[in-house]
């Protein structure tokens, strides 16, 4: 019994050791295919699998769903994405306009200026709910995923294009329009 377990223990240890040393000597070569779409991908079982990230990258599909991107010209500032977001990573501030500003590429009429459109990528959990609710499909997920930075605030992506001056001007326009309307009513 004791002899049997001893021999068995030594044999299994040897088996494991041969397995690991095979891998040790195969480490001279790296696996060539990095693309999982390649039919030969799973046939390569030997060699190092490491992808040295910043220097080389894994191929990803064009329609990959990583970081959010906003086409601000198509945005009607409806705030639906911010409401849909489960982690509240989208912050939107709208300024009303007296008349229609213009049209988005799909023909929706824009009536609000986007004074602020910030997405905090540190909070984003990549659920994609915002892209589903967007009526003009201006918020999309892209194939960009490398967002390493040295500052946490760099992860708050601002998509609004208006300057502070412009925002103040639009706000003033709106208050003036409101005041004019009030004045017209009271007349």
């Amino acid at each position: 019994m004791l002899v049997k377990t001893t021999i068995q223990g030594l044999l299994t240890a040897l088996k494991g050791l041969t397995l690991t040393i095979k891998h040790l000597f195969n480490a001279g070569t790296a696996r060539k295919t990095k693309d999982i779409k390649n039919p030969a991908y799973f046939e390569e079982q030997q060699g190092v699998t490491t992808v040295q990230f910043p220097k080389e990258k894994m191929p990803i599909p064009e329609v990959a769903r990583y970081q959010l991107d906003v086409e601000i010209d198509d945005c009607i500032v409806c705030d639906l994405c911010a409401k849909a977001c489960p982690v509240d990573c989208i912050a939107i501030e709208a300024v009303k306009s007296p008349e229609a500003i213009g049209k988005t590429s799909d023909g929706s009429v824009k009536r609000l200026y986007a004074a602020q459109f910030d997405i905090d990528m540190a909070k984003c959990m990549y659920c994609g709910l915002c892209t589903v609710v967007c009526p003009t499909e201006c918020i999309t997920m892209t194939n960009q995923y490398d967002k390493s930075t040295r500052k946490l605030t760099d992860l708050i992506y601002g998509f609004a294009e208006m300057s502070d001056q412009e925002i103040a001007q639009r706000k003033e326009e709106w208050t003036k329009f409101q005041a004019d309307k009030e004045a017209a009513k009271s007349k």
Partner: protein
Amino acid sequence: MSTLILYILVPVAIFLFIALFTLFAVYAERKIAGFVQDRLGPMETGKFGLLQTFADILKLIQKELITPAAADRILFALAPVVIFVAVFIGFCVVPWAPDFMPANVHTGLFFLMAVVSIDAIGILMAGWGSNNKYSLLGSIRAISQMISYELPVGLTLISAVMITQTLNLNDIAFNQGILAQQDIYLLGIWRVNEIGGFLSWHIFQAPHLLISYVIFFIATLAECNRAPFDIPEAESELIGGFHTEYGGIRFAFIFLAEYAMMFLVAMLGVVIFLGGWNTPLPNIGSLRLADWTTGLGWGIFWTLLKSLTIVAIQIWIRWTLPRFRADQLMTLCWKILIPLAFVCMAISGLWRILILV
């Protein structure tokens, strides 16, 4: 005066060697671990990550020494010193080349075993002094393990010493090659004083010493607290075992001691069983390979080569075998290794009486 300088220089040289060896071994360990697991290991610091361990040690040297508020300050500060010194002193009796050793002591082997055992006290000091349950658990495990595994190590060494009839490590190494002062026989039959080479190593002089060596290797692996016997450190269950609370240069010394211990036991096994500084190449007729490859430089080269090979095997085993459970560990020691070591010892006695006469 010159002897005084020599007395200072020798320990400094050994310390430098240990430090360099540790830097190299940690790098090798991480690389081997990477390759075994189909990874690359450290790659960013320097070409192929060669400067990784230098960066590590620079970081450790710079770090603040933190003593936990509840720790026993004296024991806590003293433990790394005791652990390191215990292993460090062990190096003073091991020969590197013919007559080239820090101290030629007649009871070298006994001295080494005695000094290295102090390591266990250092580990207990570290665990108790930290005043942390994981550290204490780790050190208790380490003590039980090291004391248990001292037995098979001692028994295998006795079985070798019964053949050599001396405790002087220098003489033990001498009697395994062409410079032997007494008659040596391959398998107790064929006189190999002239031939030398691997044929005159102890494991071939008396074949049961090969089993002894395997026992010695397994037991010393446990003595260094290395995987698969690393339950005192057991990163996944005890965080880091007895060195959980250590940081900075103190941790560096504990680490240094661990790697120095690896090299020391590898070197001890090489000296006692694998011919020490003797060349593995035998004299074949007029081809005097053994004569050509014996000497001071060659001796150091062979010692280093053999010891580093053994260290490589230790690392290889670490990245292959999973950790033992505490009861399995004790079963292996008390029920398998110790009886086997006793059998080897008995065979050694009979060998001495019946074959070597």
